[in-house]
């Protein structure tokens, strides 16, 4: 364990250098959560249309085709994909860290995190592999579910997010999708087994990272040029903000949205705002870069609870070998 001096981090005038993430491989889980080393589960973004709102995000909760997450999947599919890539190219990747994007999000959010987390790391051939401490996470989640006292179960509220993804994506570009398919999205069975994952190379504070993470949808089309910017879309749901407290919480959430999207190079975050009963009311678009800029601009106004450079600098420090060697001892 080590101590985070948020004040020191906040006062910092420089930010650890970062390099734009570039996708070099991808994989899909199909509807049965079987791994496929291709982009077959890629989705296109097409939001519910004005006349379809408000939409009940709870519709179909009883038929939810839910992924059984009681098993620790470790880094398996990420490593399989990397191995496949290395075979194809005949070259080993140059990353010093390999992990799921989610781990990095946690590291970045740690300066503002009250919950805490545990991770395990392994060094192999000069590369550090990091994964979540499964037991710690499972215990923590069980506690949270158990203590939940809201009128709507936390499972159902989780479903809202998946439902929104179903309502806001189509399996082919809009031009190739039939009206019927688009209009029947509300009747589709929600499935969270199916995923598209992007595997990127990026640099943070001079350290080369290889991150894998799910991306929800693509805005238009995936460019053919390798490494080119990709118009990914991150889909989120959040409660409509009615009070200052709501606004504060939403800003907090924005930090997570931003960190997640920043790490995979997702430029657009789409937030579906819902009421307390899970009715989707409106949809708003955020630019990842502009959240970052806005936070910087409002540095001194105190409206925003977090600072992007605090997140970046902190994650960079954590990845520094010193801290790691300290931890491994």
């Amino acid at each position, binding site marked *: 364990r080590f101590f985070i001096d948020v004040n020191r981090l906040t006062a910092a005038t420089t930010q650890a250098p970062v390099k734009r993430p570039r996708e070099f491989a991808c994989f899909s889980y199909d509807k049965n959560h079987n791994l496929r080393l291709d982009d077959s589960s890629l989705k296109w*973004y097409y939001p519910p*249309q004005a*006349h379809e709102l408000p939409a009940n995000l709870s519709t179909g909760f009883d038929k939810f085709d839910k992924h059984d997450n009681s098993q620790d999947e470790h880094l398996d599919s990420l490593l399989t994909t990397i191995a496949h890539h290395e075979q194809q190219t005949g070259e080993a990747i140059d990353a010093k860290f390999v992990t799921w994007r989610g781990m990095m999000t946690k590291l970045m959010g740690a300066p503002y995190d009250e919950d805490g987390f545990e991770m395990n790391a392994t060094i192999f051939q000069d590369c550090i592999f990091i994964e979540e401490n499964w037991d710690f996470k499972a215990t923590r989640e069980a506690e949270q579910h158990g203590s939940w006292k809201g009128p709507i179960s936390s499972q159902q509220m989780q479903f809202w997010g998946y439902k929104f993804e179903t309502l806001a994506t189509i399996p082919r570009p809009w*031009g*190739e999708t039939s009206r019927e398919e688009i209009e029947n999205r509300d009747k589709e069975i929600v499935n969270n087994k199916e995923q598209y994952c992007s595997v990127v190379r990026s640099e943070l504070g001079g350290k080369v990272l290889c991150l894998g993470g799910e991306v929800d949808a693509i805005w238009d089309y995936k460019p053919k040029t390798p490494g080119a910017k990709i118009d990914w879309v991150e889909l989120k749901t959040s409660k409509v903000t009615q009070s200052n407290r709501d606004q504060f919480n939403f800003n907090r959430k924005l930090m997570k949205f931003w960190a997640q999207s920043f790490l995979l190079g997702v430029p657009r975050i789409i937030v579906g705002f819902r009421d307390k009963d899970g009715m989707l009311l409106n949809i708003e678009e955020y630019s990842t870069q502009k959240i970052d800029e806005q936070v910087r601009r409002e540095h001194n106004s105190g409206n925003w609870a977090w600072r992007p450079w605090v997140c970046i600098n902190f994650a960079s420090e954590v990845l520094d070998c010193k801290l790691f060697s300290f931890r491994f001892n």
Partner: protein
Amino acid sequence: MGIPAAFRWLSTKYPKIISPVIEDQPIIMDDGTVIPVDTTKPNPNGEEFDNLYLDMNGIVHPCSHPEDRPAPKDEEEMMVEIFKYTDRVVNMVRPRKLLMIAVDGVAPRAKMNQQRSRRFRAARDAKEKEEDKQQLLKMLQKDKKSTMQVQPVEEVVQKAFDSNSITPGTPFMDILAASLRYWCSYKLNTDPAWAKMKVIISDATIPGEGEHKIMEFVRSQRNSQGHDPNTRHVIYGLDADLIMLGLATHEPHFRVLREDVFAQDSRPRLCKLCGQKGHDAANCRGEAKEKEGEFDEKDKAAPLKPFIWLHVNIFREYLAVELNVPGLPFTFDLERAIDDWVFMCFFVGNDFLPHLPALEIRENGIDTLVAIWKDNLPHMGGYLTKDGHVDLERAQLIMAGLAKQEDAIFRRRKETEDRREAGFKRRKLQQEKQQQRNGKGQQDSPSYRKSRGPPPETFAAASMNLISVSSIPKPAAHSITHDMVVNRQAVDQANVANKSAASVLKSQIQSLMAKPKEQAPAPAAEEPKEPTTEETQPKSPPSALGKRKAELITESDANSPAASSGVETPASGEEEATDTVRLWEEGYADRYYEQKFKVDPKDVEFRHKVARAYVEGLAWVLMYYFQGCPSWEWFYPYHYAPFAADFVDLGKMTINFDKGRISRPFEQLMSVLPAASRHAIPEVFHDLMTNEDSEIIDFYPEEFDIDLNGKKMAWQGIALLPFIEMPRLLKAMEPKQKLLSEEDRARNEPGKEVLIISDAHPVYEDITAKFYSKKPVGEKISLDTKLSEGLSGTVEKMEGYVPHGELRYPLERHTFPDVDFDRSLSVHYEFPTSSHIHKSQLLRGVKLSPPVLDRSDIEILKGKGRNAGRSFGGVPLNNNYNRNGGRGDRINYGPGGGNNRN
């Protein structure tokens, strides 16, 4: 809805859809040098535009017979006019990404029938005009032989360009295509505002009407990846229905650009005979134009006609309010409602079908339909149309709703007309008294004394003739003529106007000449005299009333004084074609089918057959607008529409279209042109049109009837031309095809779209590297939408083109220069093809403009909407109870809904 009244109706009902175009003008320095507008600067309209589409026939036609100038004397002069006009329009819009120029190519068969009717009429009118001119000339010669020498008519009265040449397959269209390609390349070389603009030219060799080729392009782009959903589109054209097409794309950032038809025209009118200024037709001496100034270029004082925007986004706001039906069992989808609305507009008028007798745009026929639609929507279970397909069962409900009030509509129409007629007669009487007084007074007026005019009596008679022609207080005539001036229909009828002027003049002269010689007027062109009524009345020309008057003169004994009194008589009594159908009296349907269709009034099945053909037509038009031409061969095979009541069991119908064969240009020419315009067709075919023994001579009648069909104006009537039977036409043409010259044969072949870009454009390198490097990748490639800035499609190497070669000016006189080092690239271009159909949905990422309508606009519209379309009630003729049906309580036109329901 190519009808002129449509535009007026739209702009009255939805006033905010129109706003003026702000246009920067070139600065003219004291020394005469002109500083052109720098169109790389921000658009003065406060908004930038990406794509400009030109429905090019809307430029070519007006340039071929301008209102305010003599017609161009040859094709080169006309091309230069076209360049000028196009340049002005492009500078107004300043498109930053794309310019598409679309010229009408061969049309679907359904359209050809209308073209045929227009062109046959134009030819007939031109012939009459020519006869008038010849006669006039003879009279002038007789009259003036002692004092002056009259020049041969051909030198003086410029030979009118035959607008019938503006049809695919003519040599003129070849010249036009070559000229447009040259000019766009020239602009790409010389105008910095064009550097980043892609130019697509779809000339007459590519099948399809111009505006529909544009729509196909827009649909193809929005269905493709890389399209920016916030592309700002502008379409220029004259058709009133471009705004409907704009709505149909479901691209909300869409505008229509056109000349302002309501602008007060302060420019001097030109003589309709010789096309010169300074006198009117009545005083035309047929003299050669006098040069004004050294270069005869003093016309610049005339202000340019202003342009207006029609905003599709604001129109969408209006429709969102107007069409909203609360409490539906399904959610209200504006996009679908808009499609239904566009569909219903077709009932009221379109280029492919005669409109339903009960629906007149001027009687707010669209409101009637909207009321029916709103009442039925909750029962229909969904919308009337979907992505260009009609739900026939639902269409039946709409027709049934209309049928409920059809009788009442006809009856009210008659009542209104009678009232109008009575009022008109009263006013006319007053006016005649007034004119008699004025006529006497005029002798002493200073302006009269100044002109060395005719003796008092004669002058008064002559001026009265003119007054009575142009000032006939015809209700609604004002709006019609207004619109017609800029509508294509009007252009097609320019000859009508000319004819009327010539005829009137002829009759004047004839009556004057009947008097003793010394009393004959010496036409005064020396001094600009007080303008006559004809001049001051803006845009009176296409008053077909005038034409009909003129015909009357020609028919009556021209030398008798009765001729002039005939002219004075307004549109009443004697020239009214007796309407023997009498829609306002019971039994009208029997009479209609008996007289118009020549079928037994008891043959009800025939009526249903006509109605089915009509529904097929509606389905065809809808597809044509939303998905592209569903059949190139389909057409409505009657001259008349059925009644709403004749539509039965539509739900049991199935409609399928067969794509069919696209006509070749010469087949179209043979289908639409009269023999008089055969100069536009290769000579080998002339025989078929002129020889009495030709097996298809029946297709080319010189005389044909025009059935007024209850209307007042000749141009509103129906030209009863025989329909072309394609198999017979093709069979007759077949043996002649092999006699065609190489050149003609080439002109009969379908062509390809051309894409022209400057070497300053980011995609230039990419294309030239792929086509012209040492290792070319092929002859045909897909565009990279990143480099092309959103343009999808494939491009193909063009034969004979090399990068940075020479650009040659294609015409004789070198009004424009050759360019030695051509910095533009020309390639063939094909729209991206997709097997998927257009969907009437907004694209993801579209950002709607902030609303323009305020609360009061919305309240006004809602107020209008409350009773709109319900004023006809629903009382059948044979139902005598409740004569007031509909005036009091609101009527419901939904199924089962009767009178007095709320």
